């Protein structure tokens, strides 16, 4: 397009506005996490690391980060494994009831988190399994495995279907073809799914709030601070949370992009 009529600038300006809307809350958190005023507004006070010092002096915050770390790593391992299995099944097999099978795999993110939280709490409390770290893990794996499946399934869509058959023809068993063809080909997607599911779990607050009991994760303590008064500590904890999950999601995408960028045509 050689001519650029003014409406192009209008549209571009609109795109910029949308991005400002999307990223303003994130930036705000960073800015006010180093701002001295107790009540966050403009004009800004002076620079301070006070809020970070406060949260780092709080053993509850350390504990929450420890629990969140354990939860998200466990969830990422389990959800990525289950997601890989499901993606491979969808790629490789056709069977009666496959639509139902895929619904079972992909439906969890459509159920409101409050309802998942209530259902998990009701069940886990009944069998004395609530309030533990693994209570959070099992619930999060339900929510995260669809994301892992989607990422790995996209990668499998790019594999040359003859590659696996070639391995079989050369005498490899199913298992060997899996280990030497499928898994290596999916490695970037597996890494990406791992990072993404860790991020989803690390940020999940609703189900964790219901089932965690005294084992509070970071988002759960944020939720609890939010229920009280305005507290600038949230910006400090929030900034750390943002950095963590953004790093995970950006890495997850970069890994996938580097592998696919040359394989897909221009566009998406």
């Amino acid at each position, binding site marked *: 397009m050689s001519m650029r009529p003014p409406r192009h600038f209008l549209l571009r300006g609109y795109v910029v506005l*949308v991005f400002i809307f999307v990223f*303003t809350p994130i930036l705000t*958190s960073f800015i006010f996490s180093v701002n001295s005023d107790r009540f966050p507004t403009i004009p800004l006070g002076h620079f301070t690391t006070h809020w970070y010092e406060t949260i780092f002096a709080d053993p509850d915050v350390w504990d929450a980060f420890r629990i969140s770390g354990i939860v998200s790593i466990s969830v990422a391992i389990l959800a990525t494994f289950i997601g890989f299995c499901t993606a491979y099944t969808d790629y490789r097999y056709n069977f009666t009831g496959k639509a139902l*099978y895929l619904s079972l795999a992909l439906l969890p993110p459509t159920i409101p988190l409050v309802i998942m939280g209530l*259902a998990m709490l*009701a069940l886990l409390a009944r069998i004395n399994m609530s309030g533990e770290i693994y209570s959070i893990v099992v619930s999060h794996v339900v929510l995260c495995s669809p994301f892992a499946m989607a990422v790995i399934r996209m990668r499998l869509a790019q594999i040359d279907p003859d590659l696996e058959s070639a391995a079989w023809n050369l005498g490899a068993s199913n298992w060997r073809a899996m280990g030497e063809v499928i898994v290596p080909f999916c490695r970037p997607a597996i890494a990406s799914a791992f990072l993404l599911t860790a991020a989803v779990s690390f940020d999940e607050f609703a189900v964790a709030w219901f089932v965690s009991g005294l084992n509070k994760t970071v*988002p759960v303590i944020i939720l609890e601070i939010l229920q009280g008064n305005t507290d600038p500590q949230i910006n400090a904890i929030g900034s750390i949370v943002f950095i963590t999950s953004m790093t995970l999601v950006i890495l997850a995408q970069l890994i996938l*992009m580097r592998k696919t960028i040359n394989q897909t045509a221009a566009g998406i």
Partner: protein
Amino acid sequence: MKQRRQVTLYGLTWSMPIVVWQLIFFVFPLIFLLLISFWLVKNYRMVPGFDTVNWVKMFSKGYFWDAYWRTLGYAGVATIVTSILAFPCAFALAFKVSPKVRRWALFFLIVPFFTSYLVRTYSWQIFLNDNGIFNTLFALIGLGPFQLLNNFFGTLVGYLTLCLPLVVVLQLISLANVDRTLVEAAHNLGCGRLRTVFQVIVPLAKIGIILGAVFTFILAFGDFVSPYYLGGSKPPTLSILIIDTTKSGQQWPRAAVVAVVMILTLLTIMFAAVGAAYRKRT
């Protein structure tokens, strides 16, 4: 790919983990939730049984129906507003920028979707507060103060924070796959620009637009953070009702009634929307 029909250990190894996990930790808890909606609460403890009293009680309460229609209305408005606000952005990214810009835009729209919604909501409080950034700015030019928080406007800002990036992404993917030759054909046949957008491009990108709308509806319908922290929590939506009933009242069976009604509503809407998305063209 032709596959052998018989069930193999190999096939089961890959297909079963999700079935086992989701049956135990997803389907079973939801069935259990349906069951306890018929249980009773005696002396603050749930007693198994089969009694429709919770359903009768909830359905006879005015506040339940108020919350139901309010939540439905909130989610409906969120769906329309988000879809409309997302479209020009998705359109511009699909048709008016280079593939490289499009790829990076997509990249940066996916990031916030996976980034603490809770903290982003809190950030909006800083802007929308009575003494917040927006009202401070308005005061400088002699306007306001406006109430931006603890009303539906605040809630809507929250819904947009939650859904807008996702909806732009879904619409963008659909729009980017629209066959350009059809768009050119419309132009060559003398179809005006706006008419091309609404009569050629929108129908061709129908699936992404409907998918975006459905996800907004699902997310807004079930969300409690925006109506609670930006909308002021009163009057409650269904999710807030569930939390209040569970956390304070120990009335889990009644909360379960609300939950079951919500799931049925969402399933109805999802099936209707998917039907609409894939009707005629696929």
